[in-house]
C-alpha cells in the first residue's frame, strides 16, 4: 500500500525532517496534554529508556515548538489531581500535521530499507 505523504502548508515544510526530540514530544502529546516531566517520562517509557530527554533539550525544543505553533500551553488541567503550578502543553493541528508528515516520511524510509533487506528481523 502506498503511503500518502501529507501536504503541508505555510512555513511547516521547512521544519522537516523533525529533530528526534521534537518528534517524540509531539508523539507524547498526541493523546493527552502533559507537563514537561510527564513528557520526559513518556518518551523514556516508549523508547525503553534509550531516549532520555534532558531538561535543556526538552525546554529548548518546547520553546521552538511554541514559536512554530506546533504546541500551545494550556491552562486547563487533564485531571483534578494534577499539579496546578506545572505548565501543560497541548499539540496543535499544525503539530499533528507535521508529526504525521514526519511519520509518513519515516515509513517511506523504512519501506525502502526493508525492500533491499537493510532491516533486521525485529524491525
Amino acid at each position, binding site marked *: 500500500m502506498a503511503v500518502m505523504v501529507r501536504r503541508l502548508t505555510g512555513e511547516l515544510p521547512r521544519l522537516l525532517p523533525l529533530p528526534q526530540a521534537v518528534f517524540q514530544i509531539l508523539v507524547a502529546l498526541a493523546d493527552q496534554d502533559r507537563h514537561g516531566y510527564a513528557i520526559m517520562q513518556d518518551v523514556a517509557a516508549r523508547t525503553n529508556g534509550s531516549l532520555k530527554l534532558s*531538561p*535543556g533539550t526538552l525546554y529548548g525544543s518546547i*520553546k521552538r515548538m511554541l514559536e512554530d505553533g506546533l504546541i500551545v500551553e494550556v491552562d486547563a488541567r487533564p485531571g483534578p489531581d494534577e499539579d496546578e503550578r506545572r505548565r501543560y502543553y497541548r499539540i496543535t493541528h499544525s503539530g499533528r500535521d507535521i508529526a504525521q508528515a514526519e511519520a509518513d516520511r519515516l515509513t517511506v524510509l523504512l519501506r525502502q530499507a526493508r525492500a533491499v533487506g537493510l532491516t533486521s528481523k525485529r524491525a
Partner: protein
Amino acid sequence: MQSETRLTLGARLYRRLLRLYPREFQEEYGAEMARLYRDRAKDEGVLGLWLDLLADVVRTAPREQLTVLMQDIRHSFRLFSRTPIVTATALVTIALGVGGSTAVFSVVHAVMLRPLPYPAPDRLVELFEDNPRANRPMFRVSALNYLSWTERATSMEALAAFAGSAATLTGDGEPERLAGGTITASMFGVLGLRPLAGRGFRPEDERPGAERVALIAEELWRRRFGGNAEIVGQSITLNGERHQVIGIVPRAFREVGRAQIDSAGGSPQIFVPLSIDPARENRGNHVIRVVGRLRPGVSLDRARDEMGRIAAAMEQEFPATNKDWGVRLETLYDSMLDERARPSLLVLLAAVGMVLLIACANVANVLLARGISRQRELALRTALGAGRSRLMRQLVTESVSLAIAGGACGLVLAVFAVQTMRVMLPPTLTRIDEIAVDATVLGVGLCLSLASGLLMGLMPALRASRVALAPSLAQQGKGVAGPSGTVVRHAIVVAQMALATMLLVGAALLLQSFVRLQHVRLGFDPDGVITARVALPRAQYPDAARTAGFWRQLLESLDGMPQIQSAAIGMTAPFGPGVRAGGTARSRADGEGIGAVEHIVSPGYLQALGIPLLAGRAFGQPDGAGSPPVAIVSDSVARRLWADKSPVGQTLDWNGRHHEVVGVVGDIRGADGRGCCGGGLDREPSAAVYLSAIQFPQRTMTLLVRTTGEPSAIVPAIARAVREIDPAQPVYQVRRLRDWLDESTAQPRFTTTLSGAFALVALLLAAVGVYGVLSYSVSQRTREIGIRMALGAQQQKLTAMFVRQGLWLTGVGVAIGLTSAFLTMRLMSSLLFNVSPMDPETYIIASTCVVAIAWLACYLPSRRAAAVDPTLALRSE
C-alpha cells in the same frame, strides 16, 4: 525532612547553573526546569543526575545563547539597512580606524614583536666597539680584538664574526652581483642553526690557503639553482674564482648581514669563510661585526661587566690602537633594529590608536543619538516584557555587529595599506619582507573591532536601556536627550577634539622636523650625479697596478664623453653603500687622536660631488703610486688638529702611517654610517680623511658621474665603457645620488607621511563629530528656535548661538589637547630634528587648524537653525 532540605538546596544550585542560559529562557523555563529537577531527584541517584544535568547545560546553553545572538544580529541588520547613509558612514569610520591600526600593528609585529628565528634568541648578543671620545658609538670590531675576545671572554658560549662581502657570480647566465657575507665557522653554533643541506664551515675552511668553499642562501638556491640539492658538492665561480658549494643555509641566516656593508638592503645570498690572518691585520682597523651566545644563566649585565674588564685590559696592552675603545653589548634583537625605527613605530601605533578612539567616539555619538530617538521602540519592548539586560544585550549586539562589519572592511583596507607601507618603509629595516596581514594580525584586528564595538556601544546601550517607560511612550516618538545625555555627547566631542589636537601637534612637529631635515646643509651637491658600483675580482686583478689600470682606463673613457661634466671613483658615495673604514688621525705620532672616516678617492671626486676646496689643492697627477702618500682632510679635522696654523704641508699621522696634507675640504654629511648606507641627514658631518685612489687602489669602488642632463640617461654609456674594458664585470647598484639621499630619509618620511595622514583623518572625524552633535542639537531645538524667532530673535544671532556652542566644546577640547601634547610630545623628541617638542609656533598653528575646521563644521548646521520657519516649527509641535 533532611531529604527535603537536600532537594531544595539542589534545586537552588541548579537554578544558579541555569544562569548560563539566556535570561529570557531562564525566566520562562527556570522554574519548570527546577521542578523537573526535584521530580528526577526523587527517582534517580544524585551523582548520575548531576552528571546528566551538567552535560545537558554544556550542550544546550551555548545553542540557546547562539539563537538569541542570531536573532539580535538579524534585527541589527534590518535596523541598519533602514538608515543606509548613517550606517555607511559608521562603517567607513570604523574601517579607517581598525584598518589603520591593523596595518600599523602588522609592521610593529613583523619588525619588533616577533622573536628572532633562532633557538633561545634572548641569549644572542652583538658586540660592538665603542669610542665615545672619537664619536664612534657602537662601531665595528677590529679582527684582532675579536680574536682576543674569543680567547678571554668566559661569559660567552661562543663568538662569531661576520662582514658584508658582495660577490659576482659568473658561469651559466648573466654575471650577477650578489649581496653576501664572510662568516666564521662558529656562526652556526652561535645562532643554533644547521644548513638545510650539506655542511657548515669548519675551522679548517678559514685557514689561509684552504680550498675555496661557499654556502648559498636558500633564496638563491631556489631562484638560480632550481632548488636542486645536487648543487652541494659542485663548483660555482665567485669573483672569478672557483668555489665548492658545501651547503645551503636556511632563510633565518639572512638576518646575519642584513643592513650590511654593500648589501644595500638586500639579504645576503652567498657566504664564504672569514679568514683572519693575525700577521696581516691591523688592530686599529674596525671592519667586522661580532655576535655571541651567552652561556646559560649568564645575564647581559654580567657579560657587559666582563667585556668591560677585558676592554680595559686591552687598552693597557695595546695603547696605540685600543686607547679609549670600550666594548658595548646589545641583545641581537636590539642591535638588528634601527634605533630610530622603534620610537617611530611606537609613535605611529599611538597615533593610529588615537584615530581608532576618535572613530569609536564618532560612532558612539551616532548610536547615542539613535538610542535617544529609539526610546519609544525600546519602551514598547520593555512594556512587552523585555528586561533591561535584554535591551542592553540587543543594543550591544547591534554596535558589535556594526563594528565587526566595519572591522572586516578595515581588514581589507589593511591588506592594501600594508602593501603601500612596505614600499614606503626604509629598505634597511629588519624583516620588512615579513610584514603581512597574517593570522596574528587578523586576530588583533578582530579583537580591535570587538573592543571598538563594546567601547562605542556600551555607553549608548546603558543610557538607552534606562528608559523611563511612561514619558517615552507619551512622547509620541520624538525622544529627548535630557540634560545628562547632552553632557555625554558633548564630553565625547571634547575628547575627540582633544585627541585630534594632539595628533595634529605631533604630525606638525614631525613635518617641521622633516622639512628642516630636507634643508640641512649637505656639504655637496647631489643633483645631476649618478652612482654605480663595480667590484673587480681578486683573481683577475691581483695587484695594485692592474686595479689602478682598470680605473684609469674607465675614468679616461668617461671623461671623453661630452654629456659628462666630471667622473670619479670613491670607496663610497655619500649616503650610498660601501665600506666606510674608520681610523685615527693625529697631527704627530704622540698627539691626541681623533676618529675620522677614510675616503679613498680619485682626483675628480671633489669636483664630481661639488665638495668645496677650502685650502691647498685636490689630488692630481703628481700624487702617483711611487710618490710619498698625500691626504686631504676635512675642515673639522683641520680645525681640531691644526687650530692655529694652516694644515697644508703638515704631516698627518693616519692609522700610524704618515701623509702630507695637500688640501682642506668642507665637511659633508652621509659619510659615516652603521648600516649598508650612509648616516642619516640628522647626523652631524663626520671628520674625514681623503686618500688618493692612485696611491691606494681598491677593487670595489663607487663610480660617481656628474652629467649635464638627466643622470639616468648616461647609464648605458657607463655600462658600455665598463664592458669595453672588461666584459665580465657587472655594474650594479646604479642609482642617482639623490635616490640614496632619499632612501636615508625613508624612515622620517614614512613617520611623517603616516602621522600626517592619521592627523588629517582624525581632524576630519572630529569635525564630523561636532557637526553631528550640532545638527542633532538644532533638530531637537526646532521648537525653541521657532519661539525665539517668533519673539523677534535675529537669524544671525541664532546662527551665532549654535556656532558658539560648538566652538565652546572645541575650545575645551583644544585646550585639553594642547596640554596633553605639551606633557607627552617630549617622548617623541628622538624623532625630531632641530624642532623642540614644545615649539610654540607648531602648537598655535595646530590649534588654529582645529578651530578653523571646527568652525566650518559648526557653521553649516547652525545656518540651518536660522533658516527655520517659526510658524512651521511651532505648528509641527
